[in-house]
């Protein structure tokens, strides 16, 4: 039995001019509000023993989704089936009373989760122990730092033996030591067959901890599935937003120049060879695949073949130049591609593509032997996507080894 089944879940916030309009609406059955859909058509499952990650930009609907799961808010449409007791840390110290001591808040917090006085008495010591707040437990929580607050909240919420634990990014407030401790506890929960829903902006954590992930974008599910895949896609999206100024990739690789007269040489085509094609029509590689791109150019007969060179730069979609090289640097001459001595070309090959997951484009330059004069260029072409299976981070897979200290 799934721990959580969400079917076509939607949450609309109603915006009224005045609160009374909401009452009028109920009485007269006429609409007085504008709807804002924070979530729309969200469907997923979470199995016991599974960690489900939720990622997305600010305002994507993550918090709304977690509130629905925690039961502090009701969905407008759709169905949410929850099998078991849910315990959630949403915002910092939710439901804590600032004037009351840590101990009083432990009692209150547990009682609000439905525990009886005896059950609470049994757990109090363990909660204090885990929170490491024994010295402060009789102080009002308003004197606590945000880190202490979250330690108390996490200790309470996880001590009630939930079947489903919902954790917002609140945890990031804790120090390294407590973060480690709370991660360990969450993993122990997972091993006990409990379901976890984990929301974080730390994509590395989501990729590491979660088997599956959901990417929410403007209230809808942009992607869900294996957390590695989802995070890679989300990362592509984030980098795209972070880009400084990268031209939109050119859809077709064959560029026809209208005005060729000032050029003495120009690029005619750049094509990725032997790439996998994804549904979206974008070329797709795995880290370690071989990568080949064929670049064709045309020169005017006034130039000799030695005067013409090609440079290729691989750029990630956030504008990072990953690698760039040219036939000048490598001291390679272009090849004639046919009978016409003015038609030139070259195939640029990377036997093992070491790039990690991301979206990339090529920047191709047609230059002279000094590399200073540019005949022609294609700024953003041959878009392709790379995926790697591990959770390594960075731009490129760098060959390495580990060995015993000397």
């Amino acid at each position: 039995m799934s721990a959580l089944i969400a079917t076509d879940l939607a949450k609309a916030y109603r915006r009224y001019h005045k609160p009374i309009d909401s009452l009028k609406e109920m009485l007269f059955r006429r609409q007085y509000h504008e709807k804002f859909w924070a979530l729309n058509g969200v469907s997923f499952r979470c199995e016991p023993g599974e960690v489900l990650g939720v990622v997305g930009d600010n305002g994507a609907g993550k918090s709304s989704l977690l509130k629905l799961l925690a039961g502090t808010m009701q969905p407008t449409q759709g169905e949410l089936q929850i099998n078991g007791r849910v315990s959630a840390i949403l915002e910092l110290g939710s439901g804590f009373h600032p004037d009351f001591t840590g101990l009083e808040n432990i009692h209150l917090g547990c009682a609000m989760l439905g525990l009886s006085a005896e059950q609470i008495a049994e757990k109090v010591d363990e909660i204090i122990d885990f929170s490491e707040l024994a010295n402060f437990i009789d102080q009002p929580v308003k004197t606590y730092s945000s880190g202490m607050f979250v330690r108390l909240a996490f200790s309470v919420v996880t001590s009630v033996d939930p079947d489903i634990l919902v954790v917002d990014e609140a945890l990031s407030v804790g120090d390294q030591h407590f973060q480690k401790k709370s991660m360990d506890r969450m993993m122990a929960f997972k091993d006990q067959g409990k379901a976890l829903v984990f929301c974080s902006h730390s994509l590395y954590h989501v990729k590491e901890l979660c088997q599956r992930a959901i990417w929410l974008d403007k209230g809808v599910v942009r992607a869900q599935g294996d957390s590695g895949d989802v995070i890679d896609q989300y990362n592509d999206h984030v980098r795209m937003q972070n880009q400084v100024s990268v031209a939109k990739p050119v859809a077709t690789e064959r560029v026809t120049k209208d005005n060729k007269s000032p050029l003495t040489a120009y690029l005619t085509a750049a094509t990725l060879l032997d790439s996998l094609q994804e549904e979206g029509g974008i070329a797709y590689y795995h880290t370690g695949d071989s990568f080949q791109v064929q670049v064709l150019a045309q020169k005017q007969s006034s130039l000799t073949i030695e005067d013409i060179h090609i440079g290729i730069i691989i750029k990630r979609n956030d504008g990072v130049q990953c690698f760039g090289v040219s036939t000048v640097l490598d001291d390679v001459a272009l090849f004639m591609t046919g009978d016409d001595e003015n038609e030139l070309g070259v195939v640029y090959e990377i036997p093992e593509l070491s790039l990690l997951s991301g979206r990339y484009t090529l920047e191709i330059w047609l230059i002279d032997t000094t590399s200073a004069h540019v005949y022609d260029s294609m700024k953003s072409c041959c878009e392709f996507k790379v995926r790697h299976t591990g959770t390594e981070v960075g731009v490129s897979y760098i060959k390495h080894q580990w060995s015993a200290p000397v």
Partner: protein
Amino acid sequence: MTIVKNISSHTHALRLLIGRELSSRYKGTILGIVWLFLQPLLMVMVYSFVFSVIMKVRIPGMENSYHFALFLMAAMMPYLAFQDAVLAASNSLFAGSSLLHKSTLPALLIPLVPMLTTLVTEVIAMLIVVVATYLLLEQISWYLLFLPLLILIRLCLSIAVGYMLATLSVFIQDLRLALGLLLTMLMFLTPILYPVSMIPVAFVPVNNLNPMYHLLDAYRAVILRGECPDIALVYVAGFAIMLLFLSILFFQKTIERAKEFV
């Protein structure tokens, strides 16, 4: 039924919240919980002094000089409890907005906490009035056994009105301002400060419709007169229970909407 189940599974939380409500009121004070007794006690003393010693108010049929003060207190204390409960309920969703939004506590409990708290203050106040009546007037009777029932009906009535106002004052915030005034008006229009015999004949039928009058008169009957409460108490109880059902229904129907504004 689910409502009852919901509340009963949270009885411990309810107890802690009421304790928190009470102790937060006295938190940081030197006398602490003593204030719970001191407040009604001081009021009885001041009223007795002002009305009996200084103003020497005498109402026909009340010979003892302390009679008027106790006559006043016997009805005033339950009314104040009602007033406290209703005012607190109308403010409860604003005050408890973080509980409302961030915890899974049933929303029904949020206005209930301050309203149930008035039970504690009222019981203490009534004990003091009963003891004072015995000491000053040497009046005590078995009809005092009705007192818990009266307090229960008072609570029912408060909760009924309170639930109604809890969400309503979110939609119509003017209510929070008007409510204090309305409650003062009700206090003056109900024979609390004066005996019912002073009401002009023309207004007697209107007064007879006022459930608050019958309820407060029953308090006076059992404490001061040593009489059985009037049969009109049945009308009050019926009214309170009817209203309670209606207002819980209203609260449940409107709470999700009210949540959007607090």
